[in-house]
């Protein structure tokens, strides 16, 4: 077991020794393969390391990890060659370093590019924001109309279902039988009793309604006849070439008399 760990440690240490020959990282952020290690399809020297991915060029990290692994093996011997959480943690450390390297390379590359002027970038951002707002507004309009239609349909169907529900009909019938019919009977009895006691009120009301209807009818009839009189007078005056309508006489009449 200690041999396997040492071999892994040596591998990492060998990586450390060739770190100076490591080329510059790929602009795309992917870790660059190094010549110091055999390729992944090469026959492995040891069985547990045959499936491991090719090591990347992280010399300082390799040193630290190798030292830590050696110290761990000495402090807690008897672990064997099985792959455990420690290897997972080591892989995660290297993945994180790869990701950090890629991010750093992207930042450097973006800094090396010619950057547009701030005004142009602001205009572009404003256009993008406006387009986004317009797109959101258009979608909002569509969704709102669709939602209204769906809500109306749903409400209609809900109301129809509630109105036609047998339970509701039974409830309404029960309430009508319980409240409305006795109330109507009581009100009707009260009204009939009041009519029996004070018939003058209803008679005056009916008489007033009748008189107002007759007065309105007669007034309309008289107005129509008066309009006809005016028309015929105008026509006759035009035919016989009469100058103007004479002023009618003022007939004294008692104020209390009805002109009917």
């Amino acid at each position, binding site marked *: 077991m200690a041999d396997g760990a040492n071999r892994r440690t040596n591998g990492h240490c060998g990586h450390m020794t060739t770190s100076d020959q490591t080329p510059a990282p790929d602009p795309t952020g992917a870790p660059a393969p190094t010549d110091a290690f055999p390729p992944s399809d090469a026959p492995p020297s040891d069985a547990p390391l045959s499936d491991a991915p090719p090591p990347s060029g992280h010399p300082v990290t390799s040193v630290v990890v190798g030292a830590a692994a050696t110290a761990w093996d000495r402090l807690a011997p008897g672990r064997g060659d099985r792959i455990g959480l420690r290897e997972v943690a080591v892989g995660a450390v290297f993945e994180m370093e790869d990701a950090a390297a890629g991010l750093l390379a992207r930042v450097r590359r973006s800094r090396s590019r010619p950057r547009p002027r701030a005004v142009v970038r602001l205009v572009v951002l404003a256009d993008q924001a406006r387009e986004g707002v317009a797109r959101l507004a258009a979608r909002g309009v569509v969704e709102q109309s669709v939602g209204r239609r769906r809500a109306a349909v749903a409400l209609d169907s809900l109301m129809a279902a509630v109105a036609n529900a047998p339970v509701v009909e039974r409830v309404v019938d029960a309430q009508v039988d319980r409240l409305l019919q006795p109330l109507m009977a009581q009100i009707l009895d009260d009204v009939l009793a009041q009519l029996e006691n004070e018939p003058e009120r209803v008679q005056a009301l009916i008489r007033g309604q009748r008189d107002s209807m007759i007065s309105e009818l007669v007034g309309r009839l*008289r107005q129509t006849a008066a309009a006809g009189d005016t028309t015929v007078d105008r026509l006759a005056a035009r035919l016989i070439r009469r100058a103007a309508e*004479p002023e009618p006489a003022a007939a*004294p009449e008692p104020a209390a008399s009805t002109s009917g």
Partner: protein
Amino acid sequence: MTTVPATPTVPATPTVPATPTVARRVEYAGVVSRTAAFMVDVVVVAAVALGTAAVVQLVVTVVGYRWRGLADWAVPVLLAAVPVLFALYNFAFWWLTGRTPGMALFGLRVTSTAGRPLGWIAALIRALILACFPIGALWCLVDRRHQAVHDKLARTLVVGPALPGR
């Protein structure tokens, strides 16, 4: 130059308020109103005449064969006497109330040219002339005060109520 202060004049005798009269501006009734009132009166008189004739015919039918001869001449005479009945109808209403039912429906009223109610002579003359010479009523078309021939001869006027907007 001296100024005389104006003193309020006090009447020697208190003024007695006269009978409250309102000088109302009247309208001469036009052809349409008068014709409509005339038609209403004709309908009333015709209904009365036809009703009377129907009653007479019914009575004769019920009484029997003996009165068949009476029905044969009574009904035509009654129908032929419709103008006379119409004249009596007009005379009675004009003399008593100054208006017939048709004229009351349209708010018309017959007065003398002086504005007074009709006397029985004027009412009779007016009724007879209208019954005998009804076409003379067309003269109101061209008359300034809308007087027909029977109005001219009886010295009467047909006035109507002052309607708003006229």
